[in-house]
């Protein structure tokens, strides 16, 4: 099936599952130093519909430095030629600390798009507060967070774990996903599905310091698409 222009940027659950498998495989190939993305089966009781929503994609124990790269200099002072060293030192007088993150990619049946849930810890096991997370955010993400406190990143209930996790809101995801594929050369819907989560993560991951290696984004030779039914 060709990628028709009326495609609204959303995917079905089974497509999400296929896209998850594709992401997981590509991640392993080009990011072998990182923990893998693994599929976690849903713990819902057997009598809840088994046909859908039976799991999510998980990457745990991801370590990243809290005063990371561009994250520490403020947007106003940002200019291309300058060395941001002093700003960084002022902003975060503490020594750089390593934070541990868990990321979950959950399918939202309402929005029909993936949603990122995450939580973070200090190296002593203390959970990260919003302030801690803000410190690690890249400047543009931080700006968005300040402007739209309630519609960008909030702490909400993890749909499978019943505990509050940080989440990035899904409203708008389908629009920009549609844009990402709008001038894509791939006309195979299966290829779109295969590339869907990788592309999605390349955007969403930036917010939380999760980099997607460039080679993952190179469109692979179009293999026979995963079954999307």
């Amino acid at each position, binding site marked *: 099936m060709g990628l028709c222009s009326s495609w609204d940027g959303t995917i079905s659950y089974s497509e999400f599952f296929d896209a998850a498998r594709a992401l997981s495989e590509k991640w392993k190939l080009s990011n072998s130093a990182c923990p893998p993305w693994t599929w976690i089966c849903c713990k*819902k*009781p*057997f*009598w*809840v*519909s*088994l*046909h*859908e*929503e039976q799991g999510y994609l998980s990457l745990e124990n991801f370590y990243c430095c809290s005063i990371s790269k561009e994250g520490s200099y403020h947007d106003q002072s940002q200019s291309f030629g300058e060395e941001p060293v002093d700003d960084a030192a002022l902003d975060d007088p503490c020594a750089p600390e390593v934070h541990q993150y868990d990321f979950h990619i959950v399918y*939202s*049946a*309402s*929005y029909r798009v993936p949603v990122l849930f995450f939580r973070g810890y200090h190296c002593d096991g203390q*959970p990260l507060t919003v302030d801690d997370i803000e410190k690690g955010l890249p400047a543009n993400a931080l700006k968005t967070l300040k402007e739209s406190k*309630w*519609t960008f990143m*909030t*702490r*909400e*209930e993890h*749909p499978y774990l*019943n*505990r*509050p996790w940080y989440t990035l*809101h899904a*409203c708008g995801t*389908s629009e920009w996903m549609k844009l990402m594929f709008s001038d894509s050369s791939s006309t195979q819907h299966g290829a779109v599905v295969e590339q869907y989560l990788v592309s999605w993560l390349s955007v969403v991951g930036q917010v939380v310091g999760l980099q997607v290696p460039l080679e993952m984004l190179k469109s692979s030779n179009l293999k026979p698409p995963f079954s999307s039914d």
Partner: protein
Amino acid sequence: MGAVGSEAQKLVWEGTIPLEIRLHESEITTYPPPPPALILGPRLGYLPLLAQQVKPYFSDTLPPGADTVWFEYKGLPLKWHIPIGVLFDLLCGEPERPWNLTVHFRGYPTDLLSPCEDEDSVKWSFINSLKEHRLDIQNQLVDSVIVAFKLRSKMIEYKPGLGFTGLPKPEAQARPMLGKIESFLRISSKLKLGIVGEEGYSTMTSCSIVSRQTRQTTGDVDTPGPNRTGRIPVRLYVRSVGDDVDDFGDITPVDNWDEISYVNRPLEFHDEDGKLLTLYDALKSVLPELFEVEPSIAQESSRMDIEESRTTETTSNPQDLENAINSRCKETKETPDKCQSQCFPYRKTEIKLVRIQGIEPKLVIPFAWVVKNLTNPDHFLHISVFVNASRDQPT
């Protein structure tokens, strides 16, 4: 003008739950301890919005420190983003009146509950729910929804020796506590949040299930737009209770949210052929394992159900629904039993109870009626389901 709610919608809107709220003993610094606060909590409201009334009541006895309000029922911290009525339906097997809650102002369980800083948290949780349903809602319009939705509660004071004071007169009981349903419906229709599409309306009226048109278009510009997809956002809370529970007063209280399975799913209100689905059909699409019947039998009984509902339920009076509480169980038990004995010979799993807005509706009523009349202002239909299965049962 423009938007007039149905009788059932009004009753749901005005529904309250009498709450008896005690301050947790660890936070009482005075003697004698303060008497409990008695409050009528709006079913459609949210617990943190009660803080305005509860806090002044207990403020004299609190230890020094910053206040973050949270509530607890029998040791279970209550999730504030779930409407009060849903919490009550789900956690009180046998409705408890007044509902005995414990309030805390210290020691917020951050690992269990999402943070709730103030009313803004509630407001945005509500808005994000709305958005989940209608993605194109403009933020600036949302404020007006909130204004209409804002539910207030009235404090009833208990004075030792004097009994209850400030108890509202029956006729005034609900009025002053609530936002106006009319303005809510008007704004809803402005936002084109029509719950059920036009198609659904006409089908329902032709079934004469609903005896009157809910929205009269009296030359007003506010005409409800049809729902884009016909999909109804449903939040289903499934609670497992032990085997052979006959008395819901006896079931073990929920002491951990992991005991509740939570399903969030958009559901259709009619099938591909345009046939109007019943509540039975809708639940079956989410919990098929509890309804597995040979297709022919299921279809037949479903058809019979509709026939029956056409002839017997010609009014939309919610009292009829309440009267139907008991007869419902008998009908629905039969069918799942048959299959469960085949699929799960060791133990049968069945639905013991379905509760929406405090009502235990007949499963044969059209799903569209349920959606139109019993949804919450966030446009989600919240359904509590009790099943007699244990979570650990193998597949």
